[in-house]
Structure formats: C-alpha cells, structure tokens
C-alpha cells in the first residue's frame, strides 16, 4: 500500500479495528430529516455489515437519495446519527465524510473532464517532487498500482472527457478506494452503461466486498439486487420498511414492500387487432453506425427493440425521426415513401419520439409544465396567424396531463420540480397532444419508480389499442418481452433477428443480442 502511505490521509478510524466493537461498519440510527413542507426521512435506520453489498430499494421519492446524502455528509440530519464502526460521526461536509472513510459515487459523475485520470484521482493529494512541484510520473505510477489492485485497465494520462461513462465510473471507484474507504455508496451505477460493462463493474464490486468494504448500492433494477446484493433495505415515503437477506425473498415480495400493495399486472399486455403496415423501413444505413435496417410496424402493433447499449437501437430511432438522418435507405409511411430530413418533417408525418435522456433531450428544465407540453404541437395546431390560442391550448394540455395522472399542483409548476416519473409523463403528454400515428419510445421507463412504470405500460397498451404503431426501445428485457408483439434485436449496428411474441424469451433475445 505505498500509495496509501504517500497519501498520508488514512485516518485512524478507517482501518477496520481487529476487535470490532460493532458488527456493522455503518449504522444509521433513527435519522429524521425535514425539508420545508416535507418530511423526507422519518426515523429511519440502516445497518451495513463489512464485506457486504447492501442494496437500498424504494420508489422515487422514498427517501433513498436523502439518506445517502446524509451518510455522505451532504445533508445533516435533524435527529439521529450516523455511526462508523459503532462510533458516532458528525459529518458537516462531504470532505469530512470522505476523510472518515465514506466515499460516494454519484449518479452524475463528479469528475473534471479536462483533467487526466491520474489528476482526478489524486487531486488535493498530488505527490510532490523535491522542488515542491507536482510529480506526474509518481502520480501515474500510483494510479497504475491502484488500477492493478482493482483490475482496471485504463491509461492514467488520458483525459476524463475521452472516457466512456463506464470507465469514468471505474475512475470514481478507484478514487474512492484510494481514500481507503470503509463504506462506498453507489447511486444507480448501472443506469448508463452496457451489459458487458456491468459485468466488469460487478467483478470490481465483488473484489471490494472481499476487501471488507461495506457497499451501499442504490438501484431500481431487481435483477441486480439478486445478482450482487447480500442484503437489502426497503424504504417507502420516507419510512424505513424492512431489511432482508436477498436470498430470502422473491421479486414480488420486494415490489410489495416498495409500493405497499400488490402490483398485479406489471405488463398489462392486451390482444389488440393489428392493422395495416404504417411504417416501413428499407435498408436504412448510417455509415459507421448501423446498416441495412429493414422492418415494418403495423397499426396497433408494439415492436420492441432489444439489444445491448451501443448496438445502434437509439441511432435507428434518431434516424427515423430525422435527428441524425440516415445516409441511405428508405422510409415509407402508409405505403408512401417520405423524406425526413429533420424532426419537423417527422412530426408533420405523424411521428412522435420520446427520447432516451429526459434531462438532455427531453425536458425544458427551467420552463413550466404548460411550456413543456406545448413545444411539439405548435407546428400545426393551436396557432392562428402566429398567435398561440392560449386558452384552448391550456385546456387541452391540462386534460392530457390529467389523463396521464401527472402529479402536480398546477400547470405553472416548473418541470424541474417534478419527479422523474412525472417528468416522463409530461413528455409523453407533449407527444400525445400531436396525435401521432407512429410513436417511438426510447427507454420510456428508465429511472422511474414501479408505480409510474405500470401506468406508462398501461398507457402504451391503450395507444396500441387506438391503432398507433409503437416502437419501444428498452434495455430491460422483461419490459420488452412483456409489452411487445414482436421483438427486433440488434447487435453492432445490424438486425440479428425479429422474434414473434410467442417465441421470444430472455435466452433467445440475449443470444441474438450478444451473438
């Protein structure tokens, strides 16, 4: 551990005491946290054993993030305390938590993009040469040593901005380990990385577990819970519900604990009469990204798009909608070939596109719900001589939001203040207002809690019922299998198969997707 000695920041408390007076590395005891008008956490607890992965489960708004931020020293609890190895901690800043041995890997990675991997890891703790200047060679050597222990293959001198999300996460993990942390908090670490990267991440997490680190792992994905977590705690509406071994429960048990009721129909698939071909795609190619994509979608049909992240699924959707038009190939709607050079053309052809990334390409964060709903419909409707028919538009928008059960006090609420699920519903309302005949949904339920998920699934089925042709891209196989009439599988920019609902199962799809 030369790197640790160079750092010189290993606090006494961070080494696990030989005769541990507590069987838990981290304890949260009776913590309460209020924000103006809301009790975010009400007398909650959490006990994490060293050398285990402890998952935090709960719907959005359950209080997971608040709890996490208290553990990481970002918020201070109103009541109760956080204990490390049985000793109460008073954390006033994230830095104090870090130095005490609690590291957090944020969902939005907090690295400096213009600096190198090594500089990011050792910032504030840079090794100095005899002139008192930063010793880059030593720093790179320390980084490589750290990477070797963690089985990470990265060049310490490359800039963070050039790395993939998964690799940035590796750097964050390495940084956390370099502090000799006893507790590592990971907030939905797999939400933006590919399946192979997930496998690698899990390997690293298992390695950390063997080193005796207690890992708090926040996730929405059930499969991950069973794959990586030893124990889990469930939260609901700011309350602590229960802690169990992950081998003791079933998926349904957990959902019941999370929502406080039975979710009977996760995927309310209905038999819908399938109509004529609405969208027909022939040999669509975007050089270097995808090639020879051909498929049809019929009225009332839900065509699922499966494949690993990076297989080109979203790129095909973006090409169809004119965000990045394809180089070659044809798109026909109701039998007529159409030219779609930009999203405006696509909208006029009756297409709608719910993008993958709500924050980046979906929401107008500073604007209110009304303004978020109206942006796509104003091309053709509710406009008279350039003037917007405010009253009519407001009524129709509110109706749509009510129908989709957007939870908000009023339409003037800034969308930034809504939960992920409600933001997604607002964006869906935006597109439904245009009355599309072709609806492209890219990860429609990503990062959304179970209840809202089921609502969105019901809604998609309803739309199919009304004869809308739906393309649904999703990384969650159960969702694709549960919702689709047919599943189109992509790998490396090509279609590797189109499977009917009856033949589609996890194994078939994964085989096609991974080739």
């Amino acid at each position, binding site marked *: 551990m030369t790197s640790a000695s160079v750092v010189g920041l290993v606090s006494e408390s961070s080494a696990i005491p030989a005769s541990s007076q507590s069987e838990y590395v981290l304890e949260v005891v009776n913590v309460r946290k209020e924000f103006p*008008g809301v009790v975010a956490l009400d007398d909650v607890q959490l006990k994490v054993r060293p050398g285990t992965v402890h998952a935090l489960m709960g719907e959005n708004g359950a209080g997971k993030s608040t709890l996490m931020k208290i553990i990481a020293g970002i918020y201070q609890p109103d009541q109760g305390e956080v204990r490390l190895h049985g000793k109460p901690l008073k954390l006033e800043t994230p830095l104090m938590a870090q130095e005490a041995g609690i590291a957090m890997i944020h969902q939005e990675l907090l690295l400096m993009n213009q600096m190198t991997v090594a500089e990011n890891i050792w910032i504030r703790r840079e090794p100095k040469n005899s002139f008192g200047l930063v010793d880059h060679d030593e720093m790179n050597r320390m980084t490589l040593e750290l990477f070797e222990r963690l089985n990470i293959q990265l060049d310490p001198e490359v800039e963070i901005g050039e790395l993939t999300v998964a690799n940035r996460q590796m750097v964050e993990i390495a940084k956390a380990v370099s502090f000799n942390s006893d507790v590592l908090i990971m907030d939905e670490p797999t939400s933006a990385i590919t399946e192979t990267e997930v496998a690698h991440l899990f390997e690293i997490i298992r390695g950390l577990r063997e080193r005796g680190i207690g890992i708090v792992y926040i996730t929405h994905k059930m499969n991950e819970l069973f794959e990586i977590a030893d124990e889990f705690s469930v939260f609901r*509406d700011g309350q602590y519900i229960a802690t169990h071994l992950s081998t003791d429960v079933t998926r349904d048990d957990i959902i019941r604990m999370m929502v406080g009721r039975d979710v009977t129909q996760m995927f309310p698939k209905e038999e819908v009469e399938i109509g004529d071909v609405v969208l027909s795609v022939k040999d669509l190619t975007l050089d270097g990204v995808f090639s020879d994509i051909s498929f049809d979608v019929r009225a009332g049909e839900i065509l699922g798009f499966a494949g690993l992240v990076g297989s080109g699924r979203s790129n095909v959707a973006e090409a169809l909608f004119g965000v990045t038009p394809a180089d070659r190939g044809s798109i026909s709607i109701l039998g007529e070939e159409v030219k779609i050079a930009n*999203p405006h053309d696509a909208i006029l052809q009756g297409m709608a596109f719910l993008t993958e990334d709500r924050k980046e390409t979906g929401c107008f964060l500073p604007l209110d719900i009304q303004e978020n709903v109206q942006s796509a419909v104003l091309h053709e409707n509710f406009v008279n001589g*350039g003037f*917007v028919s*405010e009253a009519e538009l407001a009524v129709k928008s509110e109706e749509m939001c009510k129908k989709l059960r957007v939870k908000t006090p009023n339409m003037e609420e800034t969308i930034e203040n809504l939960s992920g699920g409600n933001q997604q519903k607002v964006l869906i309302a935006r597109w439904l207002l245009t009355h599309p005949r072709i609806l492209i949904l890219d990860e429609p339920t990503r990062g959304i809690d179970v209840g809202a998920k*089921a609502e969105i699934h*019901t809604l998609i089925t309803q739309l199919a019922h009304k004869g809308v042709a739906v393309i649904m891209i999703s990384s969650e196989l159960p969702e694709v299998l549960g919702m689709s009439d047919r599943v189109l599988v992509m790998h490396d920019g090509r279609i590797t198969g189109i499977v009917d609902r009856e033949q589609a199962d996890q194994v078939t799809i994964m085989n096609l997707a991974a080739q």
Partner: protein
Amino acid sequence: MTTTTSSPSVAGNEPQAPKVTKKKLPAEVSIFLVLLGISVLFEVLGWFLVGQSFLANMSRLQIIILQVSVIGIIAVGVTQVIITGGIDLSSGSVVAMSAMIAATFAQSSDWPKIIHPSLVDLPFIIPIVVGLLVGALAGFINGWLITKTKIPPFIATLGMMVSARGVARWYTDGSPVSGFTDSFALLGNGLDRWMPVVVFLFVAAFFHVVMRYTRFGKFTYAIGANPQAARVSGINIDAHLIKVYMIAGLLAGLAAMVAIARIKTAQAGMGLMYELDAIAAAVIGGVSLSGGRGRITGTVIGALILGVMLSGFTFLRIDAYYQDIIKGAIIVAAVVVDMHRQNKRKKTT
C-alpha cells in the same frame, strides 16, 4: 381499458405532504419595487443633501426616460438573444455603423458638408429603412456565424463589435455627419420631444406580445431552455436563432436612428458601451444569462433603474467616477440575486 380502473398508480404516494401552492409573484414585481425604492431613496436624499425634490421635476423625468429610450430599444433585442442562451456584444458598434451609413441619406441640401451630393432631401423613410437594414444585416451575419460555423455567440458578436466600429469610421473617414432634414429629425424630437419614448414603448410592447403570445416567442424560450429538446420538438433552431439575432441588429439600427435624430449628428464613436448597458438592463430586469428565462417587462424596468440611478447620482452631484463604480456593483448584485433565486427554486424539490 379495463385495467385502468384498478390501475396500480397513485395510491401509494397520495399522502404526500400538501404542497404549498401559493402563486409566486413574478420577478418583475420585485424588480419594480427595487425601482420604486431607489427613486424614493433619491427623493429622501435629495431633500437632505440638495434641498429639492428628485421626482417632482418633470424635465428631469423626461430626461431620464429619454436617455433610457435608446438603451431600452437595444435592450429589447438583446433580451431576446439572452433568452436563447446567447449574448450580443455588437449592439453599440452596430448603432454607430447604422447611424453613420443612414445619416448620409438623411442630409438636407442646405447643409454645407454633404457626403452624397446627389442624395439630399430624401423622404425621411429612406434613411430609416437604410439604418434598419444595416442593423439587420449585422444581426444576420452574427446569427449566420453562430449557427453555421458553431462559434460561440460571444466570439461572433465580439468580432462584429470590432468590425462594425471599423465600418463606422471608414464610411466617412471618421468625420461626423450632421444637417438632417426636418422630417427625419422628427424621429428624435417629434410629438413635443417625446418621440424616442413613444418608439421605445411601442417596441417594448410589440415584443412583449411577441414573446408571450406568439409561437415565435415560445420557441425562443424553448431554444434557450434546452436546444436539444427544442430540436427534437421539431424547432428549426438555426433559422430561429438567425431571426433573433436579426431582430437584435434591427433594433440596434432603430436605436441608432432615434439617437441621431435626437442629437442631430452621427459620429463613428457613438454607442460606445451601449451593448453593456443593454445587457445590464436585461440582467437587472431578471433575464437569466443561462437562457430560457426573462421578460421584456423586466428589461424595461431594468433600463429604468439604470436611468434613474444615472440621473440620481448627477442630481446628488456624485462624481462620475463613483457612478461607474456603483453601477458595476449593481450589475454584479443583480446577477447574484438571480443566482440566489435559481438556487432557491432548485432546492424546493
């Protein structure tokens, strides 16, 4: 939909703490209160320090609002640019360029120093149209550079700021242009000298309506709030941005016409730092430099605050150096307040 009746939705989350839904006051109201506060402060200080009223003086109020008019017209355009998430540093120079070129079409034949001897005593509409076109052309070049070459608005308009000033000097070799026709001069002195104010208020009202009630305005906000989402919503961002920069240029041209008609001469050095005053008016008026947020009414009040301060300092016989120092501090303070407001919004979740 049989399943929706027993839909698993809301039940679990319903007992949420009732959100306080009191209507927030629009930012303009608080800015207006600041304007009132400053006016009252000067009034009180006036009685104590100078022994006279600050507000009960019609000619002072007229001067304030006349001075505000030119900056105000520019600020209405700059506000729209800032709402798209951009910036326009070229307004002051574009004022000079439009003024110099248009002025040469506004001369009367009985003036000794004529630039284009064949173009005298033209109807007043000709120089006005020329001025507006020159401004709009500068704006078009700004917008074109920003959208087609993808350079940041700061750089594109910085370039225009330098070049337009050069054109203004080159056009008449640096000599000022005077001797306007009476009809042209009315633009600055008509309606019993209130014409600039009338133009300003008309422009402000017109674009207030555009920004709030037309598709064009709504798209402007959308682009500033999130250009990528705007694109996916089918908005032609490039075309829209070019139009917005053209409006900003056009209004700079209009401001130039009003200014030279009022002071009866055009000089290549005029309009210096106007762009900064216009940006300051917008920012003081609550227009967010990060885009997507702000209103024309805010900018109008912001411009009035600047005008009242300037006049008030002169009234209190505060040295011009101090005036600039305080003005700078106020601009910074306005942005600090804006940031504070934005952070507070985010924390309400």
